């Protein structure tokens, strides 16, 4: 051996010592590892077992089918259609851009679509499907499906989406659905988990919004086992949801269509009510818009067009519009005076064409005055001074009280958005609102439905129905939910003596049917369909004294937005009321000329049950009416639009 033995023995003892130290350190480390294992696996096992289960099982919601909405005869107003779309996942596609380029040869993809997809793909985990294109035609959809092998990561997908086959007819009544927004979630305490599903549609306005509770249905769910990237491995459990309830409206889709088309492009609204049970047969607001645009996501250009239109197509004027009711309010003043005893059928007032009061002149619409006027004539010829006189005796509070009994100045609870209460002023109301005393001049203005008084077309229709029946008719829009009829209690009597109502109805009858009546031009010839009504022309501007001197400027010479509102309320048949109608044509001019003909056409349409027969009109008007009716572009009974007429 080269080395001295002692050296070797010393070094070996040292090695043994140090090896033992190392071994001890290793043993200690292994003990620590074992302790750690015990801590994780035994002491904390319960916590971790729970976490592992959560890792594994995901719960997915199955969106329920939204309830259908039909008209009173079962015609579809809002349905669900198959929405064919394609989605893409990054992990499947690899090179997303290349796949999109290939896809763009099969379906139309804009530059913007592709940029949006690329952006969303970048923002989400690689397994999340990003919608590429919605609402593909069947042909495009099958083209993608057939070419699937060449399009990795692209998968065709079918969902349900809301569709409104009678688009513009029901935009205001039924409203539309749209994706849930942050605003929708505000104020909901425990939001339905469904609302968290991306692109889940909920009602935004109209029936869709206000009966969301029954239309939505209940979500089903499926428990699925997922792997680490969230891909579904298998389904563990499935609970089917509950489809939303189907709603049947009181509206007759064909009548609604007629009314909508009849209003045309005017800024107008019209509501038709069944006076026996309050069913709303039609409620149209013009101009309208296509709710399907909103479901699909309206472009800002289209939206701006709707917003900037001075005819306000987005507003549901039937319930949102608050107008001075003008002369249509005279029934209220008359009934209040009759109830008060300050008026009876015999009472007469002399009308010189104006009333002097407190140094102010309140004019009658007829420059020369009506002479001696009684109740019947005051309605038929719409004498203003008559009402100026009797209103002073009755006082505003009693007039407003009568208005409230007839359904004005109160909110009628319909599943519609932004329903106005209107205004029925009282002394107290003015004090609270303006901190001013009520003045007699205010009463005089209010007596003919000007000044502070405001009412919506719906309220005017209710007023007319109540006047025609003497019962507290309540409007209703939902006829049945899932086939179960909603109950209507027989309307209670208003407690107005029949003799008073008869007097007013006689006046309304002669408005249309007496030769001196303001709306004689809108009379009905057929004896069984005669209508009774009242016109109203409400000023939207002040007429100055100097203008009166030189002669009031004719409506047609004024800019559109300064023209008077034209109103007309009516019921028919005059001797056995069945339907009440209220028409408001904004800035339409005279109520008799602009609104009354619409009311007549609508009432004849609903009484006939088909397009009105020209024979029901006065002989001199038949030719004109016939061609007007032929011009109307009505829908086919199945809801489709007729083919464009060749010019």
């Amino acid at each position: 051996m080269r080395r001295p033995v002692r050296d070797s023995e010393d070094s070996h003892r040292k090695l043994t010592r140090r090896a033992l130290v190392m071994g001890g350190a290793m043993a200690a480390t292994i003990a620590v590892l074992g302790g750690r294992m015990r801590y994780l696996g035994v002491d904390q096992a319960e916590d971790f077992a729970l976490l592992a289960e959560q890792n594994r099982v995901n719960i997915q919601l199955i969106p329920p089918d939204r309830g259908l909405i039909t008209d009173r005869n079962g015609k579809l107003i809002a349905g669900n259609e198959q929405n064919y779309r394609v989605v893409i996942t990054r992990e499947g596609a690899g090179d997303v851009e290349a796949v999109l380029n290939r896809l763009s040869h099969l379906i139309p993809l804009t530059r913007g679509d592709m940029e949006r997809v690329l952006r969303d793909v970048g923002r989400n985990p690689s397994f999340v499907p990003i919608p590429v294109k919605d609402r593909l035609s069947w042909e495009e959809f099958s083209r993608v499906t057939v070419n699937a092998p060449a399009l990795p990561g692209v998968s065709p997908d079918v969902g349900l989406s809301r569709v409104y086959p009678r688009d513009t007819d029901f935009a205001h009544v039924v409203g539309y659905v749209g994706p849930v927004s942050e605003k929708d979630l505000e104020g909901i305490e425990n939001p339905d988990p469904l609302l968290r599903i991306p692109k889940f549609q909920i009602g935004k306005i109209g029936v869709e919004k206000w009966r969301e509770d029954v239309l939505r249905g209940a979500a089903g769910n499926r428990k699925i086992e997922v792997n680490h990237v969230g891909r579904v491995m298998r389904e563990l459990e499935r609970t089917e949801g509950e489809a939303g309830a189907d709603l049947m409206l009181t509206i007759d889709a064909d009548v609604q269509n007629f009314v909508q088309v009849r209003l045309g492009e005017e800024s107008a609204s019209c509501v038709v009510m069944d006076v026996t049970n309050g069913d709303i047969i039609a409620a149209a607001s013009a101009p309208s818009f296509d709710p399907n645009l909103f479901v699909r996501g309206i472009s800002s250009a289209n939206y701006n067009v709707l917003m900037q239109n001075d005819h306000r197509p987005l507003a549901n004027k039937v319930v949102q519009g608050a107008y001075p009711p003008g002369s249509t309010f005279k029934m209220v003043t008359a009934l209040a005076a009759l109830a008060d005893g300050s008026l009876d059928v015999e009472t007469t007032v002399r009308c010189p064409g104006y009333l002097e009061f407190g140094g102010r002149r309140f004019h009658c619409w007829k420059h020369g005055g009506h002479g001696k006027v009684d109740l019947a004539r005051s309605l038929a010829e719409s004498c203003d001074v008559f009402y100026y006189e009797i209103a002073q005796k009755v006082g505003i509070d009693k007039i407003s009280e009568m208005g409230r009994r007839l359904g004005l100045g109160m909110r009628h609870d319909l599943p519609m958005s932004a329903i106005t209460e209107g205004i029925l002023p009282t002394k107290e109301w003015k004090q609270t609102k303006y901190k001013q005393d009520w003045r007699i001049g205010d009463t005089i203005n209010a007596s003919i439905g000007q000044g502070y008084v405001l009412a919506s077309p719906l309220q005017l229709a209710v007023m007319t129905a109540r006047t025609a029946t003497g019962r507290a008719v309540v409007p209703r829009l939902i006829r049945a939910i899932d086939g179960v009829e909603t109950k209507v209690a027989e309307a209670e009597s208003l407690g107005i003596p029949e003799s008073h109502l008869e007097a007013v109805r006689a006046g309304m009858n002669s408005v249309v049917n007496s030769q001196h009546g303001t709306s004689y031009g809108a009379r009905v010839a057929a004896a069984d369909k005669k209508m009774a009504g009242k016109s109203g022309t409400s000023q939207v501007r002040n007429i100055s004294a100097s203008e009166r001197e030189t002669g009031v400027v004719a409506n047609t010479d004024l800019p559109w937005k300064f023209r008077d509102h034209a109103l007309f309320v009516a019921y028919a048949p005059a001797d056995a009321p069945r339907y009440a109608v209220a028409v408001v044509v904004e800035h339409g001019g005279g109520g008799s000329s602009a609104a009354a003909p619409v009311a007549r056409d609508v009432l004849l349409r609903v009484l006939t049950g088909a397009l009105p027969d020209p024979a029901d009109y006065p002989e001199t008007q038949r030719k004109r009416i016939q061609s007007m009716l032929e011009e109307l572009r009505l829908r086919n009974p199945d809801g489709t639009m007729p083919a464009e007429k060749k010019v």
Partner: protein
Amino acid sequence: MSFLEYRVKFAPTGFGKVLYVNWGLYLVITACAAIGWLMLYSISGGDMDQWAGPQMKRFAAGLVLSLMICLTPIWFWRSMSVAAYCATFVLLLIVQFFGVVGMGAQRWIDIGFMRLQPSELMKVALVMILATYYDWLPDRRVSRPLWVLVPVALILAPAALVFLEPNLGTTLMLVVAGAGVMFAAGVSLWYFAAVAGVFGAGVAGIFLLRGTPWQLIHDYQYKRIDTFLDPSADPLGAGYNITQAKIALGSGGWTGKGFMQGTQSRLNFLPEKHTDFIFTTLGEEFGFVGAISLLTLYAVILVFLFWAALQNKDRFSSLLLIGIAMNFFLYLAVNLAMVMGLAPVVGVPLPFLSYGGSATLVLLIAFGLAQSAIVHRLR
């Protein structure tokens, strides 16, 4: 001089060698590998061909190689150690310039039938050359500064190359295993104390200078440290691996969910479930009992190695055995500490269980050398 020193020393020769092989050690190793095959079979969802089959073939081939090494005299391997070190070092250089980039780092060299990781081979070669060096070096020079610098250079040269790949785990193992051999060889404790002091100061500096303009490492490296210290802060990002591994281990309980019943690994929640994180599946499916059993097997292997090292009077053999034990221990300790959330995530496989050729092969070569030292011990 006692009677014993006059006894004729002998080493077994010929077929007689087979009797002196420590078959118990091979048996325990095979038991560990068998646990690995079970786990691989379970992770692949009962598919023999995916991982378990190839791994068994590799182990069998490695075992044959190991036996061949074991029957070759230990003094032959001592004479080969310089050549082995130099050859492996050249391989490391080749990897640096021609290697295949895998997992974001240059670690592999493609030699046709398999991909070789020279850094794994270096673990054995480094232990061999250090053992040879201290066998040759006279005892009185062991703690002389100049003679300490030589092994330090032998350690740091390959460690630097591996660090550049970059492969932090293997770099640490090379340095610590090398230091272990130096410690066993009797290098003065003052050197170790000095290095520990400098290292401690460095760590303190890293943390104290954070956020100042003089910070010593990149922000993303700080983030990794943060993630290690509190994985729940970033559960879906960098902390994901650790959190999921802990969930798997923890959900096993005392006896586990049962063979093939683990949800974490089968559903792919676990990253690297068949390689570095294979222990999590064991913990999930066989629970605390299974994990402790494996730890016990590992401890038995270490006891065998240390016992052989202490018995052996040949300095080269002793140091080689201690170095191999050190390496083996580092594999399992770093891997288990990482999987159980006690150490940062560095790529170190679990010996004999993790799927992969290089590590298994290198371990079997190392145990072949250890057995050779055992067989050729002078008796």
